[in-house]
């Protein structure tokens, strides 16, 4: 395994060997450990059901409302244990999740959606309005649609609304779940470009759960690969991109060139049986 983080980067979030059980019976995470560096984009990769969303929800403490529970291990944000806090406490500490599938408030306008992101803030209307303008400067499209009901906007606009809403809480870390879901490749590029921009200009750290390994590894600094509730590989994004196994299993290319999806899967199965 490659060394975890660069020594000069501060660790913002540290997850240590957590186990998550849903409904008291279904074991979803079987000991996941990872670190999120301050000011970086960390990608959490893996297929359906690998445990990416569960990991994010364990951090933001949204698990509890879905009958999930962290039964082992610990999660620390800036060195402080966060188990048992409310999602609202996490937002106040600067950690906010953008959920998979956007989850905009359909009957609220785009602007009202954005304003709900500032719910936990106590620093006055003036500053909040400034931040609203800032969000519009990152997402000019939202400004055009500010008065329309979010439910009637396009998938890309909803994803932007969801990210913008999170930004309105002045976060330090955004847990971004599957932003590419159901979007055209061009839009995916646009959204990831904005994420990169926010990371560089606003200094927001990202923990990004994504199935689209190819795009995620191009924009992230560091990556973890999850498979059925365990971290199976991690390393700097550039190295992961060149790793032959990652190429084979997640990017769908190998020495012999691009394989068909069917071949890749059967190969994967064979390899798992052998190991």
């Amino acid at each position, binding site marked *: 395994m490659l060394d975890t983080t660069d020594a000069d980067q501060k660790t913002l979030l540290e997850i240590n060997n957590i186990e998550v059980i849903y409904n008291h019976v279904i074991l979803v995470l079987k000991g996941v450990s990872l670190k999120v560096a301050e000011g970086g984009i960390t990608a959490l990769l893996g297929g359906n059901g690998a445990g990416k969303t569960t990991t994010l929800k364990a951090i*933001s403490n*949204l698990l509890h*409302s*879905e*009958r999930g529970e962290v039964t082992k291990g610990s999660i620390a944000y800036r060195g402080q244990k966060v188990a048992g806090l*409310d*999602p*609202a406490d*996490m*937002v*106040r500490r600067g950690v*906010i*999740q*953008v*959920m998979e599938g956007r*989850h*905009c*408030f*359909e*009957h*609220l306008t785009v602007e*009202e959606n954005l*304003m*709900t*992101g500032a*719910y*936990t803030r106590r620093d006055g209307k003036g500053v909040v309005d400034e931040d609203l303008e800032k969000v519009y400067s990152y997402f000019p499209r939202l400004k055009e649609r500010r008065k329309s*009901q979010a*439910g*009637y906007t*396009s998938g890309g606009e909803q994803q932007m609304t969801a990210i913008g*809403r*999170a930004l309105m*809480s002045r976060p330090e870390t955004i847990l971004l779940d599957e932003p590419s879901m159901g979007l055209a490749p061009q839009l995916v590029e646009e959204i990831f470009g904005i994420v990169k921009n926010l990371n560089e200009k606003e200094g927001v750290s990202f923990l990004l759960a994504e199935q689209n390994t190819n795009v995620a590894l191009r924009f992230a600094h560091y990556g973890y690969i999850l498979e059925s509730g365990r971290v199976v590989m991690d390393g700097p994004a550039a190295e992961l991109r060149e790793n032959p196994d990652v190429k084979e299993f997640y990017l769908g290319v190998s020495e012999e060139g691009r394989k068909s999806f069917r071949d890749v899967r059967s190969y994967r199965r064979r390899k798992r049986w052998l190991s």
Partner: protein
Amino acid sequence: MPDQLLFAIEVTLNGLMAGVLYALVALGFVLIYKASGIFNYAQGVMALFAALTLVGIMEGQVPFSHLINAIFGTEIHHFGWHVPALAAIILTIAVMVVFAWLVQVLIFRHLVNQEPILLFMATIGLAYFLEGFGDLMWGSDIKKLDVGLPQGINGWIDQTTFDAFGYGFFIDNLDISATIVAIILVAGLIIFSQYTKQGRALRAVADDHQAALSVGISLNFIWVLVWSVAGFVALVAGIMWGAKSGVQFSLSLIALKALPVLMLGGFTSIPGAIVGGLIIGVGEKLFEFLIGPMVGGATENWFAYVLALLFLVFRPQGLFGEKIIERV
């Protein structure tokens, strides 16, 4: 103008005002249903309980006096003072807020993510508990509620219409004040939910619980808030109905009048509750006036339900039910 037409106009006006009272009750249902998906069977009993508490405080009644007297052998019933109506209303609002908080802490916090039918059953339990609790606290005798609203025929309307048409309309002053109060209440609710931070949070919760949690809105707080507001609406409905027909057990049955209103207007719409209430109010009075004599009267009891049934067949989401947003 022919007499029949004049009578019909008078009946319509009275129907409109009865409708306002139905709408007030229905409003309480809509608020809670919208924010938490709970159909609150206890709304009618809440109106009864609020009215009982208001009368009790105004009259200086000792709460649980029967219980206290039975246990300690004392004979206390009254503190011996009278509280002015406005102060009593404010105290009653405080009681309803505490009630909302208790309901949330003791019942619904433990039922998060449960099936809607389970939540509904819990409210049925709550209704029967509250009914008994109200009796125990304030006694079960019929009480007179008078918060100083004008009652009886409105002389001015009577006189004006008599001068104009030769027939004086009978409009109760109490109905007029109920209408004014209802308009103020609804305007206040709309301003609250559209233009305040908590109102926006409330609508956000109504749309998507999970997303609301994720941006740091506390569901518990919002639910206590919405039950408090529903308690306040119940108090207003309780005052109006109580002043009209006395504070007694049958007050809790106004919930049954609200049910067809909800089917008509939609369970999730505040304007729907109002328009639904007005339609039912006018409809049942006019129906009784025009068709009643042909079928032997007493149509008011079933007319609303038949209308609601027709709506269930042809427009199940009601007149103003939440539009399900589907992008094409």
